């Protein structure tokens, strides 16, 4: 469909939008908003990363070193919240903003003004979270999962966190409604559903998950708030409620949430692998169906996070098998990526390296997930470093690596310049090595019984912890190097051609110049 940009009082067709800071505050352009999402996400990544460095510094040696236990708990809590809601999720929304309209041939997002609000709510929530460190009583300290009774007890900081979660939820809901509507309603003529790039498909399904579960999160934090201040008894056994009820509602949100953080990465990987294998994606339609089944199944597995919280045996069995079932569609995906590379004429530029790294390490995380899903084993490893290792394999070497892959892949289109390939490769290998140093040993720590979220540990855990901390510092520094690579690309990268990647086939490469113009596809392309 053709589009008309409303330029306010201005005339003519040249761009009239406010300049300077007001451009960014008032913009309704999906590219501007995408850029803000990505930079915001990176800023939060640094904040969350700083907290992680604090945690690892404390755990470098046994005994209390630099963080009092109360502060340590605040660090772990806010590290998790900021990374999940501030870094990973906004990064993917940033990608969606930039890429979805370009990949389906749409002029912009369906609700361009609301799109701006979705973004500008994030800094509000971030402010609440960061400021909460400095209020009396400090930040929330009950873990990123904020289980009661710990979370019914904290002070002002917990309330600020609750409101931050409300606001983040509102932002995600508006963002996902926008994405769904854009994809369903604004595709170029000829762009049928089954011709959409897989990145668009994964985001469509992710957005459905978001509209389903974010309101549930809002509900559960609201119950927490009224339990804290208005005397309700949702999570209070003396009043007939149950703290375990919180866990059920939270994880009804929480498990789909982890898939919200991985499905868009599947999408990015499914764009990058074919491009650098110079072959179409193997099994496109099975990828779509696999993504949809993962999303549906993910709504029925939540209690695998609660095997030690007390649950009837039938419940345990159900959730165990349901969880293991998810490994099947996930396996389909891994198979298809591998089959795409099979006999492809592959080259190994940075996006491809990160994608292959993703496949290897995500599979490790997937397997440790299946191990955690087995009830008798999980009863041993629940709340140990084993779980920490599991989810960092899926979230850091999964979601984050896919984000890196996507950034390197699309930076030329966004900025008009190439990043430095040598530096990019260094970034990949350093990340790969330091990541594994940091998190692989945590499997051993967990199996040996080291509990998570505790600032001190028994002496026998000392060596592995020191290794893990050293790896973490290295990983942290490597990401500052990434910042340098991106700035270097924007400032002085070589000019990029329209299609720097030989094997790329999607619309943003084939139908748009580089850098992508401020308004693209005001007249829609025709897709054959």
């Amino acid at each position: 469909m053709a589009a008309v940009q409303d330029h306010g009082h201005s005339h003519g067709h040249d761009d009239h939008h406010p300049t300077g800071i007001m451009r960014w505050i008032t913009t309704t352009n999906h590219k501007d908003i995408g850029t803000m999402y990505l930079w915001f996400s990176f800023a939060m990544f640094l904040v969350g990363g700083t907290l992680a460095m604090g945690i690892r510094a404390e755990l470098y040696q046994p005994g209390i070193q630099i963080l009092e236990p109360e502060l340590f708990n605040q660090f772990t809590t806010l590290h998790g919240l900021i990374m999940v809601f501030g870094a990973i999720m906004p990064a993917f929304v940033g990608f969606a903003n930039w890429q979805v309209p370009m990949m389906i041939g749409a002029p912009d997002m369906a609700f361009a003004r609301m799109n701006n609000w979705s973004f500008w709510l994030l800094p509000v929530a971030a402010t609440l979270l960061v400021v909460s460190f400095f209020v009396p009583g400090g930040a929330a300290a009950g873990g990123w999962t904020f289980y009661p009774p710990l979370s019914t007890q904290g002070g002002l900081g917990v309330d600020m966190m609750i409101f931050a979660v409300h606001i983040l939820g509102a932002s995600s809901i508006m963002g996902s409604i926008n994405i769904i509507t854009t994809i369903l309603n604004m595709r170029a003529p000829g762009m049928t559903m089954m011709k959409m790039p897989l990145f668009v498909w994964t985001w469509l399904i992710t957005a459905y998950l978001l509209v389903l579960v974010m309101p549930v999160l809002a509900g559960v934090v609201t119950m927490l708030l009224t339990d804290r201040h208005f005397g309700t008894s949702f999570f209070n056994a003396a009043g007939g409620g149950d703290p375990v009820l919180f866990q059920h509602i939270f994880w009804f949100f929480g498990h789909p949430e982890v898939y919200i953080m991985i499905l868009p990465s599947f999408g990015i990987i499914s764009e990058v692998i074919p491009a650098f294998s110079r072959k179409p994606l193997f099994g496109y339609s099975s990828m779509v169906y696999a993504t949809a089944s993962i999303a549906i199944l993910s709504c029925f597995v939540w209690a695998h996070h609660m095997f030690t919280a007390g649950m009837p045996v039938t419940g345990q069995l159900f959730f165990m098998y349901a969880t293991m079932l998810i490994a099947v569609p996930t396996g389909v995906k891994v198979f298809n990526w591998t089959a795409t590379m099979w006999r492809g004429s592959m080259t190994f530029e940075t996006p491809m390296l990160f994608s292959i790294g993703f496949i290897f390490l995500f599979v490790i995380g997937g397997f440790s997930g299946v191990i955690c899903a087995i009830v008798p084993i999980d009863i041993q490893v629940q709340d140990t470093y084993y779980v920490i290792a599991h989810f960092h394999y899926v979230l850091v070497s999964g979601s984050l690596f896919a984000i890196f892959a996507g950034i390197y892949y699309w930076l030329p289109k966004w900025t008009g310049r190439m990043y430095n390939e040598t530096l990019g490769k260094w970034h990949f290998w350093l990340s790969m090595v330091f990541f594994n140093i940091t998190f692989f040993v945590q499997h051993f720590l967990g199996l040996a019984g080291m509990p998570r979220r505790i600032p001190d540990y028994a002496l026998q855990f000392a060596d592995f912890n020191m290794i893990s901390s050293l790896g973490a510092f290295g990983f942290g520094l490597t990401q500052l190097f990434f910042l340098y690579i991106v700035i270097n690309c924007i400032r002085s990268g070589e000019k990029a051609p329209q299609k720097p990647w030989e094997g790329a086939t999607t619309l943003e490469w084939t139908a748009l110049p580089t850098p992508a113009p401020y308004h693209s596809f005001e007249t829609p392309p025709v897709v054959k």
Partner: protein
Amino acid sequence: MSQESGHYYVPAPSGWPIVGSTALLFMAFGAALTMNKMELGYGLLAVGFAILIYMLFGWFGTVARESESGKFNAAVDRSFRWGMGWFILTEVMFFAAFFGALFYMRVFSLPWLGDADHSLLWPDFVAEWPTAGPGTHEQFTPMGAWGLPAINTLLLLTSGVTCTLAHWALQAGKRESLKMWLLATIFLGVLFLGLQIYEYGHAYADLNLKLTSGAYGSTFFMLTGFHGFHVTLGAIMLTVIYFRCAAGHFTPEKHFGFEGVAWYWHFVDVVWLGLFIFVYLM
């Protein structure tokens, strides 16, 4: 700029979103401080709320003007439909969380509290719904279903009918009866709210049923309370639509502003039916 039909309207840069964010910043800090009994909170909350109202008026006003000046083509109209539809789904899920809590308490946690394991802790506790829990000693009387709640059910259902009649009138171009049915809908909604407030007063004064009355009190007041809040929003939205109708907005063919609000009103209706069955009757 002249509009060619078939063009998707992308709004110009706008200040309303950042105004909304500012409002929420004030409100969040204000609410957090207020709940922790800090004086500053009330002021922040009030300022935030005022900004929010200003934003809502400004933003929706802008959309209404854009709509009336014919900027929205059929594709934009479709977008609004998808958008409102999925928004209502999120509302359904929000209520689902509270209904889920109610079911969980009644089916799982209450029987567990009364089982042999817990009889050591609370030997006298009888695990029967409605309950205020084993640790609460104040007694209360649950809210019956066949008094006010039944009347309220009738009111809301009727308001669903009048809302549809208003829609038919709009489609038939009968502006006077459109306004009349809209007014009737709003009136029924407000009457519902009035009775609801009266019922709360009755609960607190005569039944000793409070928000703090354990599991029953929590679910009763939170579910009916959030529903009442949504009725309030719906009634406000209907009122806005009424004034837009009075100002001559909408045509028999194009009136999604009206329809969106009507959808919302029916949604609120359906939630009430769920409440009537699971909170009052069972």
